[in-house]
């Protein structure tokens, strides 16, 4: 496989091809993956030597402002955007779902810009496109991997209007951030990590918007969108497995769910790193988007976090950043260590 093709195919697709290939082709594909990772590390090294923008500084007028577009799918299941119903800067409309999506995207952009100096999904001002009223009584919201987020109105039983959840909208947009950073493969442990990162930053969007510190947050995911069958919430970062009668999330590695469904249980096993973040944030105290949020963001954007990373690898990266940023014996490093110990993940 030549280098030009390696630049076109994303790492997770290369990994899938490797799994399905003959022995001869597999070694060529894995060599390409190694090359791809080498290029990422080299780009990061070059970036370190560029002049860094001081924290808190505002640069050009184009940065620091979202570019939001909300489309109405009109209950169709089309994958292309329907009618544009609210564009950036437009006044609110009569459709509450449209306004909720627009405002929540703004809050999500604001967390990433204010706290992490990230300019949208790709850190280059990528347009934020939300497609509401997808499907008929569609009980779901998702990121399509192609720059769009889809939101259903819910069936009234499992879920209600999914645009009502600020943490849900932050969750979906964060899948885009992850795709543009570590691009974690959406299965097994790397997939559960992908899910957890979306829950963590989705929760931080809500906490930042409400001005809640770690002790004030409820640490629930989806509390504002669940119907009676999934009340009071989809997931709990504080107590995985307790959010609703069907919640099967484990809270530590001893109870890791081995399953073939849901890409190897990515929504179940996300409970483990979710709880690690909760323990880190509440052990340290204060605002969870500050030290804990910075460390999780540092880890997500660290080139050593590869697409197939395990919980242990991610834990190791968070711990190294904690020691580097705050000191080996700092309260922050000890809190991160406590988080991973609580869920029985040995940092690697």
């Amino acid at each position, binding site marked *: 496989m030549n280098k030009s093709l390696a630049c076109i195919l994303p790492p*997770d697709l290369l990994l899938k091809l490797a799994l399905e290939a003959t022995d001869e082709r597999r070694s060529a594909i894995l060599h390409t993956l190694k090359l791809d990772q080498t290029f990422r590390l080299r780009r990061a090294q070059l970036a370190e030597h560029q002049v860094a923008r001081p924290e808190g500084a505002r640069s050009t007028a184009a940065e620091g402002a979202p570019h939001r577009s909300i489309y109405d799918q009109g209950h169709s299941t089309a994958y292309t955007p329907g009618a544009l119903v609210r564009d950036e800067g437009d006044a609110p409309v009569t459709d509450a779902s449209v306004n909720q999506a627009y405002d929540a995207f703004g809050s999500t952009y604001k967390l990433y810009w204010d706290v992490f100096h990230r300019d949208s999904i790709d850190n280059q001002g990528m347009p934020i496109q939300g497609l509401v009223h997808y499907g008929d009584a569609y*009980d*779901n919201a*998702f990121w*399509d*991997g192609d720059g769009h987020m889809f939101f259903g109105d819910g069936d009234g039983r499992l879920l209600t209007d999914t645009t009502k959840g600020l943490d849900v909208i932050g969750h979906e947009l964060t899948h885009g951030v992850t795709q543009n950073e570590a691009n974690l493969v959406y299965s097994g442990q790397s997939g559960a990590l992908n899910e957890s990162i979306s829950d963590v930053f989705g929760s931080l969007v809500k906490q930042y918007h409400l001005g809640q510190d770690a002790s004030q947050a409820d640490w629930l995911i989806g509390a504002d969108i669940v119907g009676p069958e999934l009340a009071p919430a989809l997931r709990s970062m504080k107590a995985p497995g307790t959010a609703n009668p*069907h919640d099967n999330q484990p809270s530590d590695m001893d109870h890791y769910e081995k399953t073939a469904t849901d890409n190897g249980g990515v*929504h179940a096993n996300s409970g483990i790193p979710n709880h690690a973040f909760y323990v880190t944030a509440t052990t340290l105290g204060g605002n969870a988007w500050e030290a804990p949020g910075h460390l999780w963001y540092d880890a997500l954007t660290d080139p050593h976090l590869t697409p197939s990373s395990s919980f242990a690898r991610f834990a190791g990266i968070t711990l190294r950043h904690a020691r580097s940023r705050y000191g080996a014996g700092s309260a922050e490093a000890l809190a991160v260590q406590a988080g991973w110990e609580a869920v029985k993940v040995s940092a690697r």
Partner: protein
Amino acid sequence: MHLRLVRSGGLAGLDMVASLDSTDLPADQQDLVATLLAADSITPRMSRPGGADQFSYQLEIHHGDRTVRHHWEEPDVPETVRPLLAALAHAAKPAH
């Protein structure tokens, strides 16, 4: 014909299961089920990289000594099949 649907994934990550007889469906959907029974089992194509929180559908159809299993990822569900899957999902209950 007996049908069993397992819908997994989605934002909630819930496995939803529906099990019913094709006579419980409208006539046009019964015809579709017969067509799906006659077809070879469908396995999912490689899903679009980077997608997340999408549903995955596994539909099993039994009739006599024939059983077929069709598996679709959300983006690849044929439009003609969507109403059937939606009807089955509406009747589904959480697996746990």
